[in-house]
């Protein structure tokens, strides 16, 4: 038999096949997911500026930096793209996986965590939240006219802090955030360690470390986020 490899000319076709294979699509979920974890962490620590009692100066300067520093601007576009990719690929996978069982069980098998079985639902909640969140802050900050100005040391800044304080003085808005953060936490509890499993990282020595980190991250990061609306809400009272 002739060499089966010889028949393959140089081509990029494999990339399409690779990323449409079930594992290729999971790889997209895994890598974008891990990137978004990193983003979440930075976003959360950055936003801790909200807790400073400086009338919002640090936060506004931070927001300005994030939207005007070139490299970060590029990273932010990558982030938008990855959020979309993660969501679209996730929805696509969920739909495809549903098709793999056209007739459902009367009693569904368990044997797995609730979070792992409901990643698509959790993801959708997070996606809806993102739309509201981005509309409220990001869109207004970049394109809207409702954000007031503030001047520090002669330079004019958009006073995003004021918008945030305003938003989180409403109890239902705080509740919406908290609920979304709970969904995020569950999404991360499964997603964080699952991303490593998809990458093939499973080892008797290291997997327990990944799992522990996963728990700390999945609870710590949403908790960090949750502190901000709660702090602002109770501060306003």
């Amino acid at each position, binding site marked *: 038999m002739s060499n*089966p490899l010889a028949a393959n000319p140089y081509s990029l076709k494999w990339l399409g*096949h690779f990323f449409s294979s*079930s*594992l290729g*699509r999971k790889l997209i979920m895994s890598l974008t997911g891990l990137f978004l974890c990193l983003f979440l962490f930075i976003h959360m620590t950055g936003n801790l500026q909200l807790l400073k009692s400086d009338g919002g100066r640090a936060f506004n300067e931070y927001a300005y930096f994030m939207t005007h520093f070139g490299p970060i601007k590029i990273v932010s576009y990558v982030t938008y793209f990855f959020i979309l990719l993660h969501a679209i690929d996730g929805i696509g996978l969920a739909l495809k996986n549903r098709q793999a069982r056209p007739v459902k069980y*009367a009693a569904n*098998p368990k044997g797995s965590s609730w979070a792992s079985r409901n990643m698509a639902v959790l993801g959708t909640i997070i996606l809806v939240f993102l739309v509201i969140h981005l509309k409220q802050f990001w869109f207004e900050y970049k394109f809207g006219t409702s954000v007031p100005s503030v001047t520090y040391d002669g330079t004019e800044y958009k006073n995003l802090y004021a918008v945030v304080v305003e938003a989180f003085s409403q109890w239902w808005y705080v509740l919406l955030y908290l609920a979304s953060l709970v969904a995020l936490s569950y999404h991360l509890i*499964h997603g964080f360690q699952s991303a490593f499993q998809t990458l093939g990282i499973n080892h008797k020595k290291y997997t327990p470390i990944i799992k522990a980190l996963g728990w700390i991250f999945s609870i710590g990061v949403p908790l960090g986020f949750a502190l901000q609306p709660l702090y602002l809400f109770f501060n306003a009272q």
Partner: protein
Amino acid sequence: MKFTLKVWRQKNAKDTGQFETYNISEVENEMSFLEMMDVLNQQLIKEKKDPVAFDHDCREGICGMCSMVINGHPHGHQKATTTCQLHMRSFKDGDTIVIEPWRAKAFPILRDLAVDRSALDNIIQAGGYVSVNTGSAPEANAVPVPQDMAEKAMDAAECIGCGACVAACKNSSAMLFLSAKVSHLALLPQGQPERKKRVISMMKAHDEAGFGSCTNTGACEAYCPKGISITNIARLNREFLSAALTSEYEL
């Protein structure tokens, strides 16, 4: 013991199927679940009704033929047990038991609780072997295999191909089955020459059969009657990524 059974009845692949309820008494607690089904069938035959078709053969937990989802548990609620090794003593007298077939697009129902699992054979045919013609093998002890490797390979090779992993997975994914075979051969020196080609073509066969993809829920591992671990799926992922990115084989 007495039970109320809600059993999935479906005449053939085209029929839509529905649950039928049967009452059964004179069940003894030493009976296996399939022996309880025998009692039900004998009862139905005496009433001149069609007995329930279900797959079974060795009845000692190794052939992988039996396949029932019992109260939502593939092979029943007992850990690391096939349906044929599940005993009625683990149920409560008077229980209602819901019995369904493996449900997956890749496993069409033939009749009642019996499904067609040829898709699993197709995955093996795509590369789950070492290409060694009869007679061409070298002396068995020519290549030593580290004991821990042999044991790990054996852990994976214990898969009985029953398809409970598919039945348990919310995505009807057969990744645990696939990963067990890929791991078994990837861990042994004999499996090395075809290692990359194998994982690529078996993965392709898996996807083409209509199985879903793995979302790492771990339900397969929880219901596997042989306790095959999802570390095998991680290995499969590693094998596939490495083969896809470093070999020249078409994907």
